[in-house]
């Protein structure tokens, strides 16, 4: 970004001259005149052949010399002179060790260092006056360069090539070291004006007239239901949708209706509805159109907009506010664009067009490599405010034809290295994958072969580059590290470079990804050359040529360089930023209260009081929906000002007569202009290091900004923050009572079940001395070598009774069985728990009558249901339990479905069938008791709390 100063002279740009104090490595010493005496000179038809340069495979320009200045000079020689002369002339047919034997070999295609050495050692170049170089003199002498006219053209071009070589880049482009200085001058002073703002929400009633015209005349295209929908859809039959489209796309100017985009398009004759009919049918419209010499469709919609604007009240700045003077963004001084290093740029896309289906190459180098946009504007792609293009769908791509695309191949093969630079905003971090990245910038012949691709694979940038050591698809792909998440769904600067010495490198936001986080390395460890590049491929953006790999997101700048950019150059371009920036200067001369804020000698028509004191921001359109304001700085253009204790507090950025509620990052500003922080040399004091964004309302040319202050000098407008219950009413809505009363009971949860069963059975599962096998504990939870088992997490985890599942029931049963097993197998515990039960005999002997059976029921009831024999009204009675477990006292016949009898008869049946069970066994007695215990323990009497 340019550095602003208050120098009172006009803006200047200082191109930094290159020092050429070169310790030259002379490779040979041969006379230029040798060429003159060579017989059988090749037939020269004038000018260069223009043929595609063969890929350079020799040593890199930085491979021989260790002196950085020499390396830079050789590399500049290669890209600016050598490569271009190969293209523009036929000198290489002789002055080249590979094709001829005419010294000097200044266009040697085998080794760039040889060519350079010849150029220097033979004094072919005049560094002071390139036009006086020996080689130019030779061309001017019409030495094998065609007709005199053709030789003159070549001499001019060659002189330019030498000049660019010596200057380190194309004249007029950034030199890589130039720092541009912007002079800040007082802007036209404007008071904060009254402004009209679109009512938020639904379409206001006054919009009806405009809406009627739009739906009547524009609906064939500008609706989403049109056969070829054209965004924005301001002709939608739904007035609210149409209104929203008009507002967000800024098609109407309420303050100056004639400036509305809708009116301008009609004036341009864009599908004017009156042309076919010869008149609007409205005589006043026709008359006004005739009077003003305009199309009557334009007048008709302008009148409708004026009527609409008439229904919108103006918003005025309250009188008590302490305000600066007003500015629009475009009133500011242009701040950006000059500090980029474009010395090796061969194609540049800044996306400034703003509409249409062509993306222009603005590099100014060679034949413009323009791209054609495919898909529908507005739905598949859209232009981005503040410069950029956004790809929305897989039907979008931007592509050049293969012939134009050869510009890249020709130039890059000449240097053997290149860079792809892009400012991108990926729409998401889920598109693309490692095997098939989404294509951001692409030079390919289809989904399976390419020269290069910059792509996205989720959080990773993907760089495919075809070399002699990769396959035709440029694989293996260089992917940035997955865990580093170098790609973010936000605006980023990404540069990928290839050179014969360093291979592929990836830089994100100026940083080599190999130096941050996990090491990102090129999986292709053998650096090849570009000899295999195919001239029949097409250059594209946002998709593969066959639409197979779309990339969604925004491109705000793309540049192709025929050099591997250096880290310093990349950092410089990152620092330069992207998009158009302005110094937006708000006069605060009145607020400062110092007579030096007014200078009689600075009085102009636009600054009638000679105002000199400002707070400026660097402002830009951040994206389609917002502005970015950064670097708030106080500046005095009058060096005589010497602030001493001027307080600035509570600064807000106003817009269109009001203070936007969101984005006020300087509310808490509390600073003082004083001698300590104020730089008398520059006249500046930085107010804050943070920036903010504000929502765009009417557009960069229409939104009027101003500053307000709670305290500036002696001017105060103190705002007391609102506090609930004091200066603002904050009502909390009471929860809505449920339609039906919530259950008053719930389930016991997993661990409550575990300990409740322990309480009910008397088994302490943690007592490993008594229960060395820990059957209960291991049934519940076990962990062995990191492997977890047990039914703990299969038990209910919440109390909600409606969430009780069959799986829960199974887990409860398992745990109950484990507890009852431990209880009955514990001879001491069972003796005290089930007094009177003889566990040493078979079932018949243990339960000779209902008395013994009822004793078990009684025990279970007292321990688990009616605790301690207490009758609990919300629990089953002992009689009910008895019925279920052993049947009523009347005997087996009284309740054949009881548990005891079912167990008895099932065992008897098994005994008769295969002898697998025996009611005479003491084991069976224990089993019957365990079953009765389990049926109670695992029932709702335990589960419900």
């Amino acid at each position: 970004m340019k550095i602003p100063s208050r120098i009172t002279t006009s803006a200047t740009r200082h191109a930094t001259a290159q020092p050429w104090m070169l310790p030259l490595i002379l490779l040979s010493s041969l006379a230029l005149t040798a060429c003159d005496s060579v017989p059988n000179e090749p037939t020269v038809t004038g000018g260069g052949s223009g043929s595609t340069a063969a890929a350079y495979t020799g040593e890199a320009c930085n491979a021989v010399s260790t002196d950085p200045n020499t390396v830079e000079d050789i590399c500049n020689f290669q890209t600016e002179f050598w490569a271009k002369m190969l293209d523009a002339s036929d000198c290489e047919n002789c002055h080249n060790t590979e094709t001829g034997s005419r010294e000097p070999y200044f266009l040697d295609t085998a080794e760039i260092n040889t060519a350079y050495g010849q150029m220097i050692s033979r004094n072919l170049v005049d560094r002071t006056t390139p036009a006086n170089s020996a080689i130019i003199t030779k061309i001017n002498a019409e030495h094998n360069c065609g007709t005199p006219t053709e030789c003159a053209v070549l001499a001019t071009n060659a002189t330019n090539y030498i000049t660019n070589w010596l200057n380190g880049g194309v004249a007029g482009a950034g030199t890589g070291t130039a720092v541009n200085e912007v002079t800040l001058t007082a802007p036209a002073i404007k008071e904060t004006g009254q402004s009209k703002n679109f009512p938020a929400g639904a379409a206001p009633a006054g919009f009806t007239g405009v809406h009627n015209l739009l739906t009547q005349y524009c609906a064939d295209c500008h609706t989403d239901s049109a056969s070829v929908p054209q965004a924005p859809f301001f002709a939608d039959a739904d007035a609210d949708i149409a209104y929203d489209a008009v507002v967000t796309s800024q098609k109407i100017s309420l303050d100056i209706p004639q400036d509305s985009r809708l009116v301008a398009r009609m004036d341009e004759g864009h599908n004017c509805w009156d042309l076919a009919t010869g008149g609007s049918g409205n005589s006043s419209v026709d008359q006004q159109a005739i009077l003003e010499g305009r199309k009557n469709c334009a007048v008709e919609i302008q009148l409708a907009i004026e009527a609409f604007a008439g229904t919108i009240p103006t918003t005025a700045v309250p009188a008590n506010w302490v305000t600066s003077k007003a500015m629009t963004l475009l009133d500011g001084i242009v701040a950006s664009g000059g500090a980029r290093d474009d010395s090796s740029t061969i194609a540049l896309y800044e996306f400034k067009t703003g509409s249409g289906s062509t993306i222009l190459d603005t590099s100014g180098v060679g034949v413009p490599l323009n791209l054609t946009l495919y898909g529908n504007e507005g739905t598949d792609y859209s232009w981005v405010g503040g410069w950029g293009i956004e790809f929305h769908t897989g039907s979008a791509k931007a592509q050049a034809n293969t012939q134009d695309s050869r510009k890249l191949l020709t130039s890059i093969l000449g240097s053997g290295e290149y860079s792809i630079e892009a400012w991108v905003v990926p729409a998401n971090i889920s598109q693309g994958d490692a095997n098939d990245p989404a294509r951001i910038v692409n030079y390919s012949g289809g989904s399976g072969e390419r020269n290069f691709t910059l792509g996205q694979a989720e959080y990773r940038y993907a760089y495919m580059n075809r070399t002699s050591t990769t396959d035709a698809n440029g694989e293996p792909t260089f992917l940035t590290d997955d865990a580093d998440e170098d790609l973010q769904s936000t605006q980023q600067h990404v540069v990928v470079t290839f050179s014969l010495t360093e291979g592929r490198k990836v830089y994100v936001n100026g940083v080599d990804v190999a130096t941050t986080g996990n090491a990102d390395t090129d999986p292709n460890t053998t650096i090849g050359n570009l000899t295999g590049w195919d001239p029949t491929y097409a250059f594209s953006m946002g998709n593969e040529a066959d639409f197979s790999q779309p990339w969604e997101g925004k491109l705000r700048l793309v540049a192709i360089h025929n050099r591997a950019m250096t880290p310093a150059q990349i950092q410089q371009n990152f620092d330069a930023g992207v998009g158009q920036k302005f110094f937006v200067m708000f006069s605060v001369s009145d607020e400062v209260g110092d007579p030096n804020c007014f200078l009689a000698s600075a009085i102009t028509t636009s600054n009638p009081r000679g105002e000199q004191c400002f707070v400026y921001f660097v402002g830009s359109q951040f994206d389609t929906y917002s502005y970015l304001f950064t670097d708030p700085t106080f500046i005095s253009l009058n060096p005589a000002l010497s602030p001493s204790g001027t307080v600035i507090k509570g600064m807000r950025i106003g817009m269109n007569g009001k203070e936007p509620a969101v984005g006020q990052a300087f509310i808490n500003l509390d600073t003082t202009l004083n001698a300590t922080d104020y730089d008398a040399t520059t006249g500046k004091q930085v107010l804050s290091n943070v920036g903010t964004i504000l929502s765009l309302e009417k557009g960069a040319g229409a939104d009027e900004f101003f500053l307000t202050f709670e305290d500036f000098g002696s001017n105060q407008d103190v705002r007391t923050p609102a506090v609930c219950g004091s200066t603002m009413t904050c009502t909390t809505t009471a929860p809505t009572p449920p339609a039906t009363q919530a259950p008053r009971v719930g389930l016991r949860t997993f661990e409550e079940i575990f300990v409740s069963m322990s309480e009910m059975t008397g088994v302490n599962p943690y007592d490993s001395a008594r229960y060395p096998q820990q059957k209960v504990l291991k049934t519940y939870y076990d962990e062995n070598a990191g492997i977890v088992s047990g039914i703990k997490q299969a038990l209910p985890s919440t109390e909600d009774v409606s969430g009780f599942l069959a799986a829960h029931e199974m887990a409860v049963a398992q745990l109950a069985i484990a507890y009852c097993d431990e209880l009955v197998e514990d001879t001491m515990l069972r003796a005290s728990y089930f007094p009177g039960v003889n566990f040493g005999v078979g079932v018949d002997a243990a339960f000779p009558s209902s008395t013994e059976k009822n004793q078990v029921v009684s025990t279970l009831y007292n321990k688990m249901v009616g605790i301690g024999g207490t009758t609990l009204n919300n629990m089953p009675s002992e009689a009910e339990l008895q019925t279920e477990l052993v049947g009523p006292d009347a005997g087996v016949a009284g309740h054949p479905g009881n548990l005891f009898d079912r167990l008895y008869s099932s065992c008897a049946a098994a005994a008769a069938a295969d002898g697998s069970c025996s009611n005479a066994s003491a084991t069976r007695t224990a089993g019957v008791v365990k079953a009765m215990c389990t049926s109670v323990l695992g029932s709702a009497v335990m589960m419900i709390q």
Partner: protein
Amino acid sequence: MSTHTISKTLATSALTLVLSAMLVGNAQAITPEQAKRIHDRLVGTPPSAACLSQLTPLSANAAAIDAINDTGGSDNCTGTDFYRVTLKNFITPWTNEEQTVFAPLNDYSATLIGIIRDEDDFRKILYDDILYTGPSPSGLANSNAHYKNLEDTGADLQAVLTATTQSAVYPGIAPAGIFSTRAGAKAFFVDGTNRAMFRFTMMNHLCNDLEQVKDTSYAPDRIRQDVSRSPGGDSRIYMNACIGCHNAMDPLTQSFAYYNWIKDVDGNPNTDDGFLEYTNGVVQPKNLINANNFEYGYVTEDDSWINYWRTGSNSALGWDGALTGSGSGASSMGQELAHSEAFARCQVEKVFKAVCLRAPLETADQTQIDAMITTFKGNGYNLKQIFADSAVFCMGS
């Protein structure tokens, strides 16, 4: 039970005094069904026969306290599982990002259990230099084994937990309640940007997720550089959503600037290693990552914090006028949160739901919540009391 701060007798007396005015009628003996439900809800188990007999003659309030306090000797209601089961499972979901109740006992949960057991000021959980351990603790800074072993062996937490200080156990860290516990740090200071610690504290202890306090009107000047102002290239998302939480969250989360969880020291992600790192005076790099997402964002230079929610719509959270609303470090920020009305209400509502097994949505529930908040604040922020009060309210007829 030597660590109990007050005896059952004192507790019963105090409880009777506090509740007598608002719960008239509960001074009478309770039914066995009510006694069982009080015990069920607080302890998680049905009472033993002896315990049920002990509770039934008591007033509801006294029975509730009796059920969860073990005074030793002839006390038949030990209340062991109130601490070992009910409180542990009440607290455990707050200690991990998955909010699972199946996570093991840890220093976060054990400390809160200890504070409740000792009827200490529950607000301390967000700022105090306090920690509870079991017998013979060792290696606490680098492992949770001590606490897991307590759980695996069914230790009676009511009996074995002993109060100590974090500064004694975790040397070099700035103690700040749960923020500087090992479990809290492991869950919420791991990776990322430490904002998780703030968000989960808001959810767990102020009962508000960020969505509920979203307000885009606060000044965005402290939103860090890593927050994209144009996610996916659409700044409307930031202006309508992101800014509404980050504007106040980032300046509060800045209090965690010196904390970081060092994970996988042994290189094995499946082991329970790692420790809390505190770099006094040096901002952890995680606070400065992704700076190029918005280079004009706020750059964290220290651990100073400020509470923008003291004004505007979120002043409804009820901030303590005796505090300044700004400071340095996690402890003072935690105190700012803990002293809010929202904190007190949140704790009471959580206990109500845990004991009554339903959200307090009915009119009578809301009245009870308000009464218990008053009790909570007027009784030294003793959360055990709120458990008892909730059990009485939901003991049934």
